[in-house]
Each structure stands twice: as structure tokens, then as C-alpha cells.
């Protein structure tokens, strides 16, 4: 059974004057995926989203939504939030969403549903300008849900939210994903991507440095911290040891990532056979955050 391609990006580039914000990025998002775009600030996440939503003009490459160039009909199947929420501060939440609903040919009932989902129904007649930052963010989520779109594009949706709001947004995303909607989520928060996304593309300085399933890309690795009387010689030995995947030095420690299925016990045995008595051997699980930092270093 073939998988429906929702978004295909091919060699997309975007420059701001001499600054190349996005360079030759290519990836595909399939139907039903929760696709994370992960990268530090300034990595090109928002620019990529702004280009594929038609807000910015690309300098190179192309992209297709539902197999076609971006058209009015396809836009209406997408609910999107880019960067900060953009609404008229002098209009009420209901009036602001009325504009979105008219654009998307959605009913007024859909406005109340969206406000209800974002827990803002009681505030529907409040002016947008009078909302707190967290409420503004929830209003943006409500706007994305107007018209029950097939695809949700969310750029840093938990910006400005407290832990409770963070959890609420995560629940909204997960409940939308369970309805079979495709979700594209840009974030610099690894935890957010890890908890919500099935797939991830990692950007650094405008380039795509990795993409694939979250489980494959961001698997936890075991790191072994070792010390001996002669660190330099031990480091030289471990660099060429077959069971070692990576080795580096951090302050007084040598950190070793072992190839699977080797264990710290086997490492200790190997060192002992080579004449090194380890004064310290400590196993520590590497956090996903450290993995991510390693990737974008």
C-alpha cells in the first residue's frame, strides 16, 4: 500500500541578502506522521515553514503539498502557526477567528469548537490584545484548528506557556494526531519533539543534518566514564579499540561510547588485559539533549 505524501520539499533554499538561511533542504512528510523539525535558534526552522506556507518566497528548490504546488484549495487544508501568534489586538477572539473561518470557508460552530479545544470559550468576547502570553499562544492553537484541517503546522507552539499550558498543547497535538491528522512541529525543545513526534528532521545553520524516525535518530546511548593513572595512554588505546564506537576526553574523564552489544564489564576486562587498572568506571545514560547537542555541534 502506497503512503500518501503530504509534503515534499526538494532542495529548498532561502537567502536574506547574503545570509543563506536555508540551504538545499529536502525531506518528505507522509500522511499521519507527526513530523518534528528540530534545531537550535537560527537553524532555519521558521524560514522553512514560512516558505512552504507561501509567506516567504524561496530562492531555490520547490515544494509540493498533496502532490501539487501550493494553491488556495490546498492552503485551506492546512492550519498553521508560525512564530508568534498574529491577530488584531482590537478585535475579540471570536472576531479574529471569524476572519480565519471566512478565509477557510469554515462555519461559526467551528470557531466555538476551536475555542473550546483551546480552553478559551469563556474569553471569546475578550479583545485579543488583553490576553496573557500563554492565552495568546492558546488562541493561536485555536486558530490552527479552525475548519478541521488535514495538516497542522506548528512553529514553537509551547512558547510562553507554563508547564500546565505546555501539557495542554501536547495533549491537543496528540489528540489531533490520534485522529489521523498530519502534524509538522518545529521546535528547539528536544523534549517536546521526543514526546510528540514520530519523525524528525534536524537542522543546523540552515542545513538538514539528519532526518528519520525519532526512535532511530535520537536513541539513548550508554556512556562509560573511565579514569586510570595514565590517561593519555589509555585514551590512545581506546581510540583504536574494536569495541569502542566513540571516545573523547572531558576534563579528567575519558568518555567512551561502546558498540553494541559490548558492556562496561567487557571494557574493564579489555583495559585490564592491556595493563591498565581503571580507578574509575561509571556508566551513564546519555540524555537525548546531549545527543541533539552532539548532532548540531
Amino acid at each position: 500500500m502506497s503512503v500518501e505524501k503530504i509534503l515534499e520539499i526538494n532542495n529548498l533554499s532561502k537567502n536574506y541578502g547574503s545570509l543563506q538561511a536555508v540551504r538545499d533542504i529536502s525531506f518528505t512528510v507522509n500522511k499521519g506522521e507527526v513530523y518534528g523539525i528540530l534545531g537550535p535558534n537560527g537553524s532555519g526552522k521558521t524560514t522553512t515553514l514560512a516558505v512552504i506556507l507561501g509567506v516567504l518566497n524561496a530562492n531555490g528548490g520547490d515544494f509540493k503539498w498533496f502532490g501539487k504546488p501550493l494553491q488556495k484549495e490546498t492552503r485551506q487544508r492546512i492550519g498553521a502557526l508560525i512564530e508568534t501568534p498574529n491577530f488584531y489586538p482590537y478585535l475579540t477572539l471570536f472576531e479574529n477567528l471569524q476572519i480565519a473561518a471566512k478565509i477557510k470557508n469554515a462555519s461559526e460552530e467551528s470557531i466555538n469548537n476551536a475555542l473550546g479545544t483551546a480552553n478559551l470559550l469563556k474569553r471569546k468576547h475578550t479583545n485579543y490584545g488583553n490576553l496573557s502570553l500563554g492565552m495568546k499562544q492558546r488562541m493561536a492553537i485555536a486558530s490552527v484548528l479552525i475548519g478541521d484541517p488535514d495538516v497542522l503546522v506548528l512553529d514553537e507552539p509551547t512558547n510562553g506557556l507554563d508547564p500546565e499550558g505546555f501539557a495542554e498543547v501536547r495533549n491537543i497535538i496528540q489528540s489531533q494526531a490520534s485522529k489521523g491528522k498530519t502534524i509538522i512541529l518545529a521546535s528547539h525543545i528536544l523534549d517536546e519533539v521526543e514526546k510528540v513526534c514520530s519523525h524528525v528532521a534536524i537542522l543546523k545553520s540552515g542545513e538538514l543534518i539528519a532526518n528519520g524516525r525519532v526512535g532511530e535518530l535520537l536513541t539513548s546511548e550508554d556512556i562509560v566514564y573511565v579514569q586510570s593513572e595514565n590517561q593519555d595512554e589509555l585514551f590512545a588505546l581506546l581510540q583504536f579499540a574494536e569495541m569502542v564506537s566513540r571516545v573523547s576526553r572531558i576534563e579528567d574523564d575519558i568518555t567512551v561510547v561502546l558498540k553494541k552489544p559490548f558492556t562496561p564489564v567487557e571494557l574493564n576486562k579489555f583495559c585490564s588485559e592491556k595493563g591498565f587498572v581503571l580507578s574509575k568506571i561509571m556508566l551513564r545514560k546519555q540524555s537525548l539533549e546531549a545527543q541533539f547537542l552532539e548532532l548540531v555541534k
Partner: protein
Amino acid sequence: MIRKLFQIEKIKALSYPAFKTLMIIHFLLFFLVVLIVSQVNFSFPGFSVTKLYQFPNIWEFFPWVASWFNLFLAIVVILLVGNEFSFRTFRQNVIDGLSRNDLIRGKIILIFSIAVYTFLMVLIAILIFGLINSDDYSMGAIFGKSYLLLIYFIQALGYMSLGLLITIMFRNNALSIIMFILYFFPIEPIIRWIFEAHARRYFPIKIISNLTPMPEFLTMTSEKTFTTSSGTSALDFQEMGLTIEPLSVGLNVGLAVIYILVFLGISTYLLNKKNL
């Protein structure tokens, strides 16, 4: 689609406090001027204020008075369009599904709606004041110069289209208002001054503001041709080459329409080319 865009613009404009304030000020100032002038009991041989309020002269006088306040209409457009950049709502509208051409169409509908409103406001005022003050109620007298109101309508479109273009260029309310006013004076007058006298008549502000020239009160209210104290008429000055013959009404209107189309065309081009 036009209906949808109109409804969207209606929501954006009618709830905007500055829009309501400026439109009320525009309305009050216009009626205040025509009411105050109507109460002035000023006449001398060959001139009477009452005649300004009678058909067909009123078609000339009221649009001229209304044209003084076109600046308010242009500022309304500048604020409403500038807000779209300040609040980044043009960007959100595109994300939600409008094309960039739809954004411009929406603003053209807004401009057209304001022009229709002000057209109707002046029309109603003309009919009320004209019917109260006129002596001659023949169709010829009542509608004799009614085309001048249509020309005022084009002028209102012209000011607002220029306001739209300047706002799309500068993307900032305060800067756009300053640039709009500076273009009236001194930018265009200085540019005009560089050119030969005949060419000066073709500049956009000259063309648009000449659509509702000051009525020739004395010739309007008197059967006699007004002459200067030295006995020379305006025609004599033209014959002497001291003044330039004005463009015909038809040519002036035609050029104004062309300018409006150019303003809207450049606005569309810029909005399509620039990032939102």
C-alpha cells in the same frame, strides 16, 4: 470571493477604534463646514452665498468642500493597511488561505467601500441642501452638474490608492502618513518645479487635486464675468502666457484613472514580490 473579502474587511475596519473616530471626524467636519457656510449671510453685488447651495452650483461646491477632508480617508486606509504589517496579519491571512492578490483585492474593496460611503454622504447632503435652497427644480437644474460628484468619487479613490501604495512601500503607519503628507508638500511640488510648466500639469497630485478645483464663486453666482481690478480676466493671463491652460475635465479624469490603476498595479507587484 468579493463578498467574502468585503465581509473580512468589514470586521477589520468597523471594530477598529481609529477607523470609527476618523470617519466620525470626517463626517462632522464636512457637515460643520457646509452648515456654517450656509448660515453666513454674506452677499455683495454679483455674489451670494445662497447660490452655492442651489442646483446646479451645489454639485460643484459640496464636492470641493468634501475634497478638503480626503486626507482623513487616505489616513484611514494607511492605518488599516499599516496595521496588517504591524500586527503581521497579512502574513496570517496568507497562512490561513488567502493569496497575496486576495490581500490587495480586499484593500481595493475597502478603498472602494469608503469612496462609496463618502460619495453617498455628499450626495445626500447635496440633495437635502439643494432641495431646501433651490428655486429651480427642473431636472436640468437639479442634475445639471451631477457628474462632478462622480469626479469627486474618483478623486477619493485616487487619494486612498496613493495611501495604499505608500503604506505597502513603507510598511509602517507613522512613516507612511509622514511620507504621504511630504509627497503632497514639498516632494511633488519640488519635482514639478524642475519640469517645464506644461509638464507640471501631468503629475499625480496635480492631476488628482485638480479633479475638484475651487469653484469660480463669482462667475457661479453672478451673470457677469469677474475681472480683476486692472480689468484683465483669467483668460487674458493665459493669452499673455502667464498661466498655463488647465487640462480638460475629460483628460484630467482619464489621467487620474490611469494614475489610480498604476498605484494599484505597483501595490500588487510589491506585495507579491516582497516577503510578508
